[in-house]
């Protein structure tokens, strides 16, 4: 702590909110949604004005009650205890405010007041438990900090600059997170096209004991299968999807969604997005097949790789068993690629289109190597995705941290403070306050229209 900073806080002063700003609650009037829609019907955009509530704009109306810059703080229904959310916001120009927000106008900087309220801890000023309420009586008592005017301006500018930088960072991280999905697709496509492995990795595959050209492998997998030489590589073949998987029958073994239990012995796997849709205790319904299998959502096109015992969901759940001598995981990834190749038919069935597709089949060691290459990259993606989520969470905390520092009087650097003191309108906040007290007429009592 240095003396400069202590001095700065000496130039600040704290006072009750009712002294620091004007309260214009008498300008509020509620109009319910039904009446508003009647009033705005048929009117052009230039005849409409924003209608504001506790936390922001809630609609439009055909007239205005305020015209100017104000700070609005929710009276009820505002997230007073949630540090991540704002409780105050600014409005300007012609507007109409309902009775769920207090209307404030600072004697000093409105933006300074806005940011102050958004980092203020409202505990002790809020009444009610389910519906939190900040009455005007409590609002008036809120201890409000006032700094010399140039400092208020400088602090506001710095807060906004830092918020801008933060938003910039957040936008980039979100862009990166979105691209991860595209990256996964690109990896799968590259694998499909036989371009994922390096030449060293390919050489290693060829040295494995179970290496044989895919054409020969296919004869072992399915002697009846027809295949053609693949353009991808000399020892690959192009094969029809349905020649390498068997459909597992689940008639009489399906469980309808309404019979799912929230907990139970056996998981139910269906075509929904989550891996497990629900549970059941009914042992009879377990799918009889060798694991692992691929569960395909006929309507949703979801692809799941399942290696534990389960019960099948009903509508649209297809169970596919990869044949022997083929890597089941490889087929699962191929299925995902084929899903992106076929046309989206909305809620119609998709499997009939998947099974018509051809795909290039590599020798078995290469299948394993490709799966391994895909999974290590996907693991890296997952890690990165989690890292981004954490960083985004921490950015929220950073926002609060900026505001807190600002109002602890620690945001401006020594140089920035010196600049402030050079400004012609610099004076200790106490003097500012005294002048306001002397010139202000007594505060009008809140009168409802």
């Amino acid at each position: 702590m240095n003396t400069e900073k202590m001095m700065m806080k000496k130039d600040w002063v704290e006072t009750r909110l009712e002294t620091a700003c004007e309260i214009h609650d008498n300008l509020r009037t509620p109009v319910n949604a039904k009446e508003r829609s009647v009033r705005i019907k048929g009117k052009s955009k230039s005849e409409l004005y924003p209608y504001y509530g506790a936390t922001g704009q809630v609609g439009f109306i055909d007239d205005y009650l305020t015209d100017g810059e104000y700070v609005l703080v929710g009276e009820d229904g505002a997230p007073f205890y949630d540090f991540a959310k704002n409780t105050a916001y600014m409005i300007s120009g012609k507007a109409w405010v309902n009775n769920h927000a207090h209307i404030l106008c600072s004697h000093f900087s409105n933006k300074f007041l806005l940011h102050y309220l958004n980092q203020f801890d409202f505990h002790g000023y809020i009444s009610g438990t389910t519906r939190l309420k900040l009455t005007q009586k409590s609002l008036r008592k809120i201890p409000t900090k006032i700094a010399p005017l140039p400092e208020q301006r400088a602090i506001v500018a710095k807060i906004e600059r830092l918020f801008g930088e933060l938003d910039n960072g957040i936008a980039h991280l979100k862009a990166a997170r979105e691209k991860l999905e595209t990256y996964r697709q690109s990896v799968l496509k590259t694998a499909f096209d036989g371009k994922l492995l390096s030449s060293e990795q390919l050489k290693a595959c060829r040295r494995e004991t179970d290496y044989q050209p895919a054409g020969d492998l296919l004869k072992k997998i399915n002697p009846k299968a027809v295949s053609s030489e693949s353009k991808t590589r000399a020892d690959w073949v192009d094969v029809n999807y349905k020649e390498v998987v068997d459909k597992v029958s689940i008639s009489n073994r399906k469980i309808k969604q309404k019979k799912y239990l929230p907990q139970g012995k056996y998981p139910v796997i269906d075509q929904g997005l989550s891996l497990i849709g629900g549970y059941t205790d009914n042992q009879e319904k377990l799918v009889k097949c060798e694991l692992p299998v691929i569960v395909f959502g006929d309507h949703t096109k979801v692809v799941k790789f399942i290696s534990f015992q389960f019960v099948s969901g009903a509508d649209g759940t297809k169970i596919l068993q990869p044949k022997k001598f083929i890597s089941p995981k490889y087929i699962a990834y191929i299925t995902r690629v084929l899903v992106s190749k076929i046309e989206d038919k909305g809620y119609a069935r998709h499997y009939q289109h998947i099974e018509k597709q051809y795909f290039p089949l590599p020798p078995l060691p290469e299948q394993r190597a490709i799966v391994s290459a895909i999974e290590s990259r996907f693991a890296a993606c997952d890690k990165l995705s989690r890292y981004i989520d954490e960083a985004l969470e921490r950015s929220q905390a950073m926002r609060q941290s900026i505001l807190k520092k600002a109002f602890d009087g620690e945001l401006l650097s020594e140089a920035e403070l010196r600049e402030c003191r050079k400004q012609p309108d610099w004076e200790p906040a106490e003097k500012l306050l005294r002048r306001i007290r002397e010139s202000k007429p007594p505060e009008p009592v809140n009168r409802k229209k």
Partner: protein
Amino acid sequence: MNTEQSIVSKVWNFCNVLKDDGVGYGDYLEQLTYLIFLKMADEVSKPPYNRKINIPKGFGWASLQNKKGAALDEHYAKTLRELAKAPGILGQIFTKSQNKIQDPAKLSRVVNMVDKEEWAMMGADTKGAIYEGLLEKNAEDTKSGAGQYFTPRALIRAMVECVRPRPKKTLSDPACGTGGFFLAAYDYIVRNNQLDSAQKRFLKNKTFHGNEIVANTRRLALMNMFLHNIGEIDGDALISSADSLVSDQGRRFNYVLTNPPFGSKSSMTFTNDEGKSGKEDLTYNRQDFWATTSNKQLNFLQHIRTLLKPGGEAAVVLPDNVLFEGGAGETVRKELLKTTELHTILRLPTGIFYSQGVKANVLFFDNKPASKEPWTKEVWIYDYRTNIHHTLKAKPLRFDDLKDFVARYKPANRNARKQTWSEKNPEGRWRKYAYAEILERDKTNLDIIWLRDKSLADLDNLPDPEVLAGEIIEDMESGLESFKQVLHQLA
């Protein structure tokens, strides 16, 4: 094969010979630049030109012609060093020059190749084609990063056709890279006007002005312009090495056409006197700007506006974040709409720049005098991004692809523009938005899209995983850099 084609193929073939020797396109280009320049200086010092070129004695072309082996190598290196000290364009071209051809035998072959041709006499088209061709090839080598100095020529041409520069006016590019905008503007003015001798002189010597802080790129730009007949061999350099953003140099121009660098590196790491490394924030301190920010593109936009005369016109390539970023971004957008007439935005597709995945736009605006009322009444937007797929190799951007945009832009009479979008034709790509509509948008953002994206996962045009990984890392680095900036300010 005619002479031009045979020269081009000769130059190209040698490219590959040198590539095998570890001399990349960029390095080859650099050496060619020095040698051709010296040869041309030699040619114009003789009849019929008889120009007085002040090449230091003993370092002219003749001194290179008669040497071989180690002697050539040594003399060439000395020549490069000497010429770097010369005044004018000469010094600028040879600044920080280095010989990158290690094998003197190969160096000798390049010297001979250059020696055989009469460059001064060669049409500007030919020289231009050879040089630009090499620049383009150089830019394609993505690992070298040279692509960031090269704006796709089809895009440049479209921008010039919209702005329609006129003779006897000045044009600036404060981030000129290899000078593509200058060349295109030059060609446009020559093609569309019967220039008298005063206009020709103005075009050659007084029209163009640029900035490029990277010495090698500046050299390529100067040479590029020079081969195109812009500037005099012994004249002042038309391209400054100063960082345009640092301060207002005072000059004002009729036109600004530019593509400022993408990327958001906004601080430098340096080692101070005690040998400790620290980071210095490169936030430019410009009192004449509307907002202080470390966002380079926002700063360029503000700077460009200061470069314009009243009535001056600008066309600037800028990334998406300029259109939607809050804080300083919002301030800049609001002020731009008020103080200039921001009449057109062209949304560009991905896959046309050498930095894959870049989402960029062209902003067209006219500077106006001070006024109480905002100057922008409506912004016209052409969406050439949604459902458009280009790649650098398989489906590069051609001028034909932008012909519809230029036609709709109506350069000759912007008041006669008509939307192609309507309630009945929601797939129309040309649409206007009123000033009031834009003000209502969150943060006054100009990131406006109305077309439905039909190809959220266009399998055929997916970039390679490595390319995507690179972009993801860049995004993460930018994001984390921003957070670091904030933490640094809070400490």
